[in-house]
């Protein structure tokens, strides 16, 4: 018996076709992984099943859930179906919950609106459901508000909302993308357990092959609104035939060609650096309590090296980055670049540049690319020449004529290239890459990694590569620093750390990371 059956689903939004004949089906108790890069239509396929599509959508084809035809249902029937027969979990747990309602209320609401249960009964069932999602009442009472919980805990609340009525089908759209690796592993385990206990069908949407491969029974690969391949998850890596699937696989585990070119001369030195943040006063005139975000950190980066700094959110890696860039003072210790202190001799900062994570938020939309790229020259007393701009753009694989365009005319991957061009233009020695490839699709990510390796050879660059993504860091870094709760808990050559981690936290991190079948 099939649970969700989608046949020849076509969808257009305001006349633009986005889904072209999508078909997929799976049975209760099965996990169907849907994989695709951004714009592949995977989320819209899920939203079509819920009929929660944006305005101006036009759906055709056939969608049945447990034998019932979804596309012919009236709105009132759809409302009865959503939440009761089908639950949905979304990507962004930080915004998926109503900030002004307690978590108990939000879980109980699913029960209240569908079953007309009494308030007391709905609340007690909400408590049970939250406990099933590993949020026991003793530690997470019903009257907690979302802002009092972490991202992973919020995602558990969202899952509790979705499964409160024991739906037959659960749709999870990138449920772990916004979470840390260890939290991701826990949430995936929870989803698997719920599927096994309730015999639900789970449609798991992700851009990450490794996440899906570890959990799904079947895998559907989507590209540009079409299903290009469908396989059993366990044997996908052997059976895949479609070139796109193969390309996706290659890109996920992509290993840029690197030649070691390090010189035993230290470029960046971080010596015993600590950084405290002031917290709000507890009493009216009392002293500010402090929080130590970076605690006696000490490491060095040698010329020509690529050093990976790995850690989960809140571990202090961004604080450390800002300190290295000389943007925020430190309370203890010294940071030197090429032997000169970044705080007392700010001139030395022109030898380092930074590339940030978000290719959409880190450019001024009103300036043309030429101006954006030449921005680092503000620290020098001259402006960039046309040749310099052209060279910077060419070196990152763009054309000189692109300098006349505005940033919105570029895709995410191209924007990240422009960010790299901006960092390169004044020929720095050190480039700090702060989650620089985390927001990119795997195929684009692979290209950018290749580009970074090429550039480091051409220009003799040194990288400090900050990321939460272990796969990426393994493919590009010579050495790794593992950061946890403000401290560097382990450092060593990449292969040594991956193969024989000494610290317990490193081991936990490596275990949690989803792996591609070899």
């Amino acid at each position: 018996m099939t649970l969700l059956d989608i046949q020849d689903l076509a969808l257009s939004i305001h006349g633009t076709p986005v889904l072209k004949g999508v078909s997929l089906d799976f049975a209760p108790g099965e996990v169907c992984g849907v994989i695709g890069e951004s714009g592949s239509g995977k989320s819209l396929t899920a939203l079509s099943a819920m009929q929660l599509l944006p305005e101006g959508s036009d759906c055709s084809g056939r969608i049945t859930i447990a034998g019932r035809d979804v596309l012919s249902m009236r709105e009132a029937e759809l409302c009865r179906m959503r939440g009761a027969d089908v639950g949905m979990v979304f990507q962004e747990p930080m915004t998926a919950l109503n900030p002004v309602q307690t978590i108990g209320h939000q879980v109980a609401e699913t029960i209240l609106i569908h079953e007309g249960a009494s308030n007391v009964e709905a609340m007690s069932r909400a408590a049970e459901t939250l406990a099933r999602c590993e949020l026991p009442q003793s530690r997470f009472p019903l009257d907690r508000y979302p802002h009092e919980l972490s991202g992973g805990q919020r995602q558990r609340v969202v899952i509790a909302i979705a499964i409160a009525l024991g739906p037959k089908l659960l749709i999870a759209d990138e449920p772990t993308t916004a979470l840390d690796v260890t939290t991701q592993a826990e949430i995936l385990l929870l989803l698997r357990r719920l599927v096994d206990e309730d015999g639900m069908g789970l449609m798991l949407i992700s851009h990450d092959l490794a996440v899906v491969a570890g959990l799904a029974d079947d895998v559907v690969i989507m590209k540009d609104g079409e299903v290009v391949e469908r396989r059993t998850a366990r044997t996908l890596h052997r059976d895949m035939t479609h070139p796109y699937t193969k390309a996706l696989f290659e890109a996920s585990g992509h290993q840029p060609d690197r030649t070691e070119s390090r010189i035993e001369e230290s470029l960046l030195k971080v010596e015993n650096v600590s950084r405290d943040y002031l917290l709000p006063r507890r009493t009216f005139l009392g002293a500010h309590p402090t929080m130590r975000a970076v605690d006696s950190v000490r490491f060095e980066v040698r010329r020509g090296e690529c050093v990976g700094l790995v850690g989960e959110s809140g571990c202090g890696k961004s604080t450390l980055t800002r300190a290295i860039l000389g943007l925020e003072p430190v309370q203890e210790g010294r940071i030197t670049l090429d032997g000169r202190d970044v705080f007392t001799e700010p001139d030395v900062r022109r030898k380092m540049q930074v590339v940030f994570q978000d290719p959409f938020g880190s450019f001024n939309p009103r300036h043309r690319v030429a101006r954006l790229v030449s921005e680092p020259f503000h620290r020098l007393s001259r402006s960039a020449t046309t040749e310099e701009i052209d060279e910077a753009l060419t070196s990152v694989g763009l054309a000189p004529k692109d300098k006349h365009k505005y940033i919105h005319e570029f895709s995410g991957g191209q924007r990240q290239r422009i960010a790299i061009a901006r960092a390169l233009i004044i020929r720095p020695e050190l480039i700090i890459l702060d989650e620089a490839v985390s927001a990119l699709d795997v195929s684009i990510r692979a290209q950018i990694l290749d580009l970074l390796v090429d550039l480091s050879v051409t220009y003799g660059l040194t990288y400090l590569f900050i990321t939460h993504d272990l796969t990426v860091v393994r493919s590009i870094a010579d050495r790794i620093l593992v950061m946890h709760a403000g401290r560097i808990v382990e450092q060593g050559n990449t292969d040594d750390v991956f193969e024989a981690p000494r610290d317990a936290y490193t081991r936990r991190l490596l275990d949690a990371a989803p792996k591609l079948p070899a």
Partner: protein
Amino acid sequence: MLRYTVKRLGSLLASLVVASLVIFACIEVVPGDPASFMLGINAQPDTVAALREELGLNRAPHERYIAWVGGLMTGDFGTSYTYRSPVSEIVVERLAISLPLAIYALSLTILVAFPVGILAATRRGSLTDISVMATTQLGIAIPNFWFALLMVLIFAVNLRWFSAGGFPGWDEGIPAAIKALTLPAIALALPQASILARVMRSSLLDTLSEDYIRTARAKGLTGRQALRRHALRNALIPVLTIIGLQFSFLLAGAIIIENVFFLPGLGRLVFQAISQRDLIVVESVVMLLVFAVIIVNFLVDLAYAWVDPRLRSRA
């Protein structure tokens, strides 16, 4: 919540102290001597000096400030130079009109703006939405004294439903007093309701595109239920800010409308007091208005915390 309230109260007191200092200082530097103004151009210098002594104008500034603030706290606002009667009596008399008028106008504002704003937001892009946007644009653009005169012409002169102006006093019965305040309240409410409806609309549109509304729909809530249970309360935060500003404005800023309808309200009192150099009245009324504004802001702050639990815990 208690911590939050105490903190807000602290900032309320601090604002009052600063405001009283600023007002006092402004009055000090304003040109014009009340004593010579009261006695006219031909007054003898020694008569003026005697009056200055009587009014306490010869004392040092800090002594006068302390005396003034001390008086305010005990309810003694001093005596008006021109009216020759206690300022507190005059103010209470005027407040009996201005305060009900402000509350009346604000109630009308909210009663109109909420449904209109919600309607426009839920039917975004529809004919209803477009007409709401056009009408509110007009409501903001029309000068309200002109609208007031138009209403007088239609409802007082032609239809004779209302009187053209004046206030019978609360002794004449509540219905009569409310009737007298109706046209001024509508005139005051028109632009405010237009502004508030637009704020409500845009705030609600922002909220309706939030992820948690999608979560609510995925639970099985209808669009209307999601609006009522999840969107409205979240959309209220910017709306509350505007309501707070509007109330303060309506209390003191009704001067033009008070003039059109011959209402002896606070606005007219300040205006007259300034032109007659009745500084003690100016000082006291301005301080009173500042006090009202600060209290309103305090209430708005409490309302924020009631709406948004994140504020309660952050305090």
